[in-house]
């Protein structure tokens, strides 16, 4: 049974990427959105509503990508600009 699991690792990898990586990306989006140039409540609400779309599209990407490695790479690539936008928010910079 362990051998079966080992053989399935690309699929398992994708499932992990989809469920957890996708959520992480969505969560990142919701934080990054706070840095948008608008009133904070509006920015938060915008990020919230967009996050689910990001999650769904991330899942689609993960299973549509040619290989599991590409799937992860895509997620990391998408996360980069979001992280950039999210850091100032976490550090509490600005209003």
């Amino acid at each position, binding site marked *: 049974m362990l051998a079966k699991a080992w053989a*399935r690792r690309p*699929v398992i990898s994708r499932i992990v990427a989809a469920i957890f990586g996708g959520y992480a990306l969505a969560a990142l989006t919701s934080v990054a959105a706070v840095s948008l140039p608008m009133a*904070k409540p509006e920015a938060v*609400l915008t990020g919230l509503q967009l*996050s*689910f779309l990001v999650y769904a599209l991330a899942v*689609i990407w993960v299973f549509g990508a040619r290989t599991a490695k590409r799937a992860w790479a895509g997620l990391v690539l998408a996360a980069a600009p979001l992280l950039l936008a*999210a850091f100032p928010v976490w550090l509490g910079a600005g209003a």
Partner: protein
Amino acid sequence: MSAGKAEPAEPGLPKGQGIRQSMSDLHIWAGLLVGWILYAMFLTGTVSYFRDETSQWMRPELPAQHQPPDSAEVAERVAATLATVAAASSQWSIGLPTERSNIASAFWRNPQAQGRRAFQSGTFDPATGQALQVRETKGGDFFFRFHFDLHYMSPLWGRWIAGFCAMFMLVAIISGVITHKKIFIDFFTFRWGKGQRSWLDAHNMLSVFGLPFHFMITYSGLVTLMLMYMPWGSDAAFKTPVERQAMTSQMSAFVPAGKPTGTKAPMVPVADVVRQAQERWGRDNIERVTINNPGDAAARIVVVRGEAGRVSVSPQYLLFDGVTGKLVEAKDKVGPAAETRGVLYALHLGRFADTVTRWLYFLVSLAGTAMVGTGLVMWTVKRRARLPDPDKPYFGFRLVERLNIASIAGLPVAMAAFLWSNRLLPQGLAQRAEWEIHLFFIVWALMLAHAVLRPARRAWVEQLTLGAALLVLLPVLNAITTQRPLWRSIAEGDWVFAGYELGLWALAALLATLAVRTARHRPRARPVRKTAPAAQPSAAAAVGEGA
């Protein structure tokens, strides 16, 4: 994104996996893993479009109302009752009857308790303001709450599970569209094939014609609980409760009770204040009246606008000084993102809808329920044809098959049993409202047991027939146990009761039709299993091609 013939095949994935194949697999897995809970959410959600009518039917002692009572007077009466029942409370909130709902409700803060127990609630007779003296029942609220809270677990758990399933559904919708090449053109060229193809056609048709609705209802469902699912942005942006209030005030008409002064002061009559709001919004367009610090000099009265005439739940309210009755604040606008959320939320609830629109909601939502059901059934139909030994299916197949029966056919039986229990349980029974719900689950569990013990096809037919029988006999039971038989409701123009019971008959007819067709269905003779695997239609072809 063609099948990469030159690419090395990845272990674990079939060679030459194209995007349509992978989306098809994703669609099937996503749908299957959460299908039964999703079906339950869809079915209880569908009937919740008639939540108020269900509640009315389940309180037959309350007479039919041909016009909603004056909100101002109802608010005054209930406030008077609360002044005796909840005098020490810092906040009373009164929900008013509407065209479709004939009761008043209220919740109030219990100053002695903390946390969840901090609020108490009750239902009240709009005519007298007194606590309702009718049979204790949750009415249509049970199906409504079950839809997103589930039951027998903390609402937090229930909502996480519901959200998880909703996310899977969103993925299923998107992957379903991608995998289906000519989705809209194919819609009109589907043909009712036989066997596996007809289930596929039914599933495709139900999915496509309601696609705007299905996408909207899933996405808006996630949005209704979005702060719970994605608290990160809000937590990062707001460090203090005061800062957070800037956002929550864009989402809810809840005005927290400020600090009381401690000085007593007589309150202005609630009716006067509500009348000011009625002048602005219409006589029957008041949803809620909340009184903060009643009897104190710092008393405030918040009158919340009703749902008619707009498709949004964004807060619109009038804030009055509780002692002088003067208008302190009029809130009628929120920012664009907040308004978007308000619109999505309203679209999900559909409470703004007039009768015809409400029926459209119901029908398309019912189609969505059938979409989930046909998808689940299709899984077993497709795999039954491939079973090496049809009399000894593998565990996964048996599991799916029996869960299908217990949910698709069993849930309607349980829901009908809930309505039966409302008429049969004795009035004075302790915890009567909870027992109606226990019976719902007991019957559902019995349906699961039945589905496991009987041969599959018999189980389908028996449960569908039972569901039809229970529904068709409900108006008969009602005629025997109450003073409001169907013929009297029709004669008196009580279309809530009459419409409800006729609707039950229509649903009974639907279940009966399904039962008859299942009983008549003769599975095709199994083809000789000597053909090469290439002759088997690939999943992509089956799901992707429409014709």
